[in-house]
C-alpha cells in the first residue's frame, strides 16, 4: 500500500511559521520572508464571524499555503464531539483548502468544561478504541486528511500499557490518519518522564508524518514546560535532523507563541530550520 502521504498527495511545504497578529504587517504588507514558505494558523482563532482576523486570513491565503492547527477539538475526551466545532472547522478548511488539517492527541473537555489545555491520554488499548472511531468521524466530516500531534506531557498514568510512540502509531494506523510529529514535545516529555527521545522518533510510522514541529521550551527545574517562548534548543535540532532523515522531506514548522519576537527573529529561526533540514536530507 502507498504511504499515507502518497495516497493523499501531501506536499512537502518546506519551512513555515505560525501566523501571529504581531507579524501581520511584516507578512501581509512586507511579503514575509524567503525563509518562510507557508503559514500555520490556530484554527479556533479564525472560527469567528468577521473583522480583522478573517480579513487577515483571506489576505494570507491569497499569498501562501495556510494549514489550520486546532487546539480544542478534544478528540480524546469521553464527551461527544462538538458538532458546532466541527461545522466551524469544516467551514475554515473549505476556505483555506489546505493539504490537511491538524490537532492533538489529547482531551480538552471534561465534566462539561472546556479546560483549554492539551491534556494527555493514558496509553491504553481502551483509549485507542475510544480514539479511533472519533478520528475517523472527524476525517470523514471535514473531508480532508487529518493529522494528530503528540503533546508535551507533565504526568504519566499508572494505567498506561505501552509507550507513547506505540500508542500514537497504533491510533494512526487504525484510524488511517496522519501524524504531526512535534520533536520539541518528544524532547520535553522524554525529559519529564525519563524515556528515550530517539527511540520515540524511531518508533513513529514515518510514512504517516505529514509535518514536523520544532519549538523552544522552558526549564522549570523539576520539569520542562512546552512554552514556545524561545529559540529551539540544540538538542531539539538534533532530534529534528534525526526525524526528518527518517521521514524524508516533509513540512516543518517553527512554533513561537509566547514572548513572540520580531518577524525577523522568527524568520532567522526558519532559516536555521532550513539549514538543519538540508543537512539531514540527502
Amino acid at each position, binding site marked *: 500500500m502507498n504511504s499515507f502521504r502518497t495516497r493523499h498527495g501531501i506536499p512537502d511545504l518546506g519551512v513555515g511559521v505560525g501566523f501571529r497578529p504581531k507579524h501581520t504587517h511584516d507578512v501581509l504588507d512586507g511579503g514575509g520572508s524567503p525563509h518562510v514558505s507557508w503559514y500555520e494558523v490556530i484554527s*479556533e*482563532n479564525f*472560527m*469567528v*464571524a*468577521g*473583522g*480583522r*482576523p*478573517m*480579513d487577515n486570513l483571506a489576505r494570507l491565503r491569497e499569498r501562501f499555503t495556510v494549514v489550520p492547527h486546532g487546539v*480544542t*477539538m*478534544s478528540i480524546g*475526551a*469521553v464527551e461527544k464531539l*462538538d458538532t458546532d*466545532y466541527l461545522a466551524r472547522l469544516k467551514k475554515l478548511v473549505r476556505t483555506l483548502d489546505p493539504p490537511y488539517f491538524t490537532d492533538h492527541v489529547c*482531551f*480538552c*473537555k*471534561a*465534566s*462539561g*468544561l*472546556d*479546560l*483549554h*489545555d492539551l*491534556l494527555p491520554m*493514558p496509553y*491504553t488499548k*481502551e*483509549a485507542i478504541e*475510544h480514539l479511533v472511531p472519533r478520528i475517523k468521524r472527524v476525517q470523514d466530516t471535514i473531508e480532508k486528511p487529518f493529522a494528530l500531534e503528540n503533546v508535551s506531557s*507533565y*504526568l*504519566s*498514568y*499508572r*494505567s498506561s500499557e505501552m509507550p507513547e510512540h506505540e500508542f500514537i502509531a497504533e491510533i494512526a494506523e487504525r484510524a488511517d490518519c496522519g501524524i504531526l510529529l512535534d520533536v520539541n514535545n518528544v524532547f520535553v516529555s522524554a525529559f*519529564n*518522564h*525519563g524515556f528515550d527521545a530517539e527511540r520515540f522518533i524511531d518508533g513513529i510510522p514515518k510514512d504517516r508524518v505529514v509535518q514536523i514541529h520544532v519549538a523552544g521550551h522552558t526549564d522549570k*527545574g*523539576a*520539569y520542562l*514546560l512546552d512554552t514556545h517562548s524561545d529559540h529551539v534548543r540544540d538538542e531539539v535540532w538534533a532530534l529534528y535532523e534525526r526525524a526528518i532523515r527518517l521521514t524524508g522531506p516533509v513540512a516543518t514548522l517553527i512554533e513561537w507563541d509566547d514572548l513572540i519576537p520580531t518577524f525577523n527573529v522568527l524568520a532567522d529561526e526558519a532559516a536555521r530550520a532550513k539549514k538543519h533540514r538540508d543537512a539531514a536530507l540527502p
Partner: protein
Amino acid sequence: MTTKNLGDLQAMFAEALASPKSIAREGEWPTRGEASFTGSARLSPIEQLDVYREQFWLRHVACLAEDFPTLQAFVGEARFEAIVAGYLAAHPPVHFMLRHLGSDLARFLEASNDESLVVDIARVEWAFVEAFDAADAPPLDARAVAEIPEDAWSTARIILHPSLQRLRLAHPTHTMRAQHREKVPVVRPEEAATRVVVYRRDFLLYAEEMEALPFDMLERLAGGQPLGEAGDALADATGRREEVESRIGEWFTRWSALGWITRVDVSV
C-alpha cells in the same frame, strides 16, 4: 480501563484544575494522585497534576487580563486574580474558544454587588471584544437608499452593522479605557448616566457617547422596530415629537456615514 474509567480520570482533571490554589498538599489529593499517576524522579504524582492546574489558572487569568486590561489596571492584579477566581468558580469555561471566556464577567460582577463603576468598565471592555470580530457587512448602498419610495420609509427596517454594541452605563467608563490605552493615568469618572456605542469601521474600533434621544431611537431600530413605528414610540415616550421628527434625518445621515447603518429593508 473502560471509557467510564477514562471519564473518571478526565473528570479528576476538571476537578483538580478548578482549584485556584495548589492541590499538592491539599486533603486527599496526594492519595488520589498516587492512585492514578506515576510521579517522576523530580515530581510526586500529585505535583504532576498540579502543573496542569497551575497552567490552567495562568492561562485563564492571562486571557481575561487581555480582554479586560483597564479593569485589571483599575482594581490591581491581586484583586483582579480574586475576581477571576470567583468568576471561574461561578462561570467555568464551557466554550471551546477562549474568546468567549469573559462573556459573563460584567454580569458576574453585577450579581456580586461589585461597585457599579467596576461593572461598567467590564461592560465597555467586553463590548470591544464583541465588536472586534463581529460579522462584516457591506456599507450602505446610497443608490439603493435613493431609490426607496417615500411611502416605504415608515415601514422600513434599518439594519445596523453587526459590530454595533449599545451600552447604557452609570459612568463614562469608555474614557477610562481610552486613557489606559493611551498609557495616561486612568481617572475615576464621576457617576453620570452615559450612553455609548462601540463599533467597528475599517477594522478599527471606536466608542461614541450619545445623547439620550438618538440612543433610544437606535435601540428601537436595533430591536427591529420599523422606522415609523420607532419614531412614533420614541416621540410618545419622551413627549418630544417635534424634535424627533426634525432630527431623524440628521441621525440617519450621521449613522450612515459612521457605517452603523448597512441596509434599509423595505421588503416588509
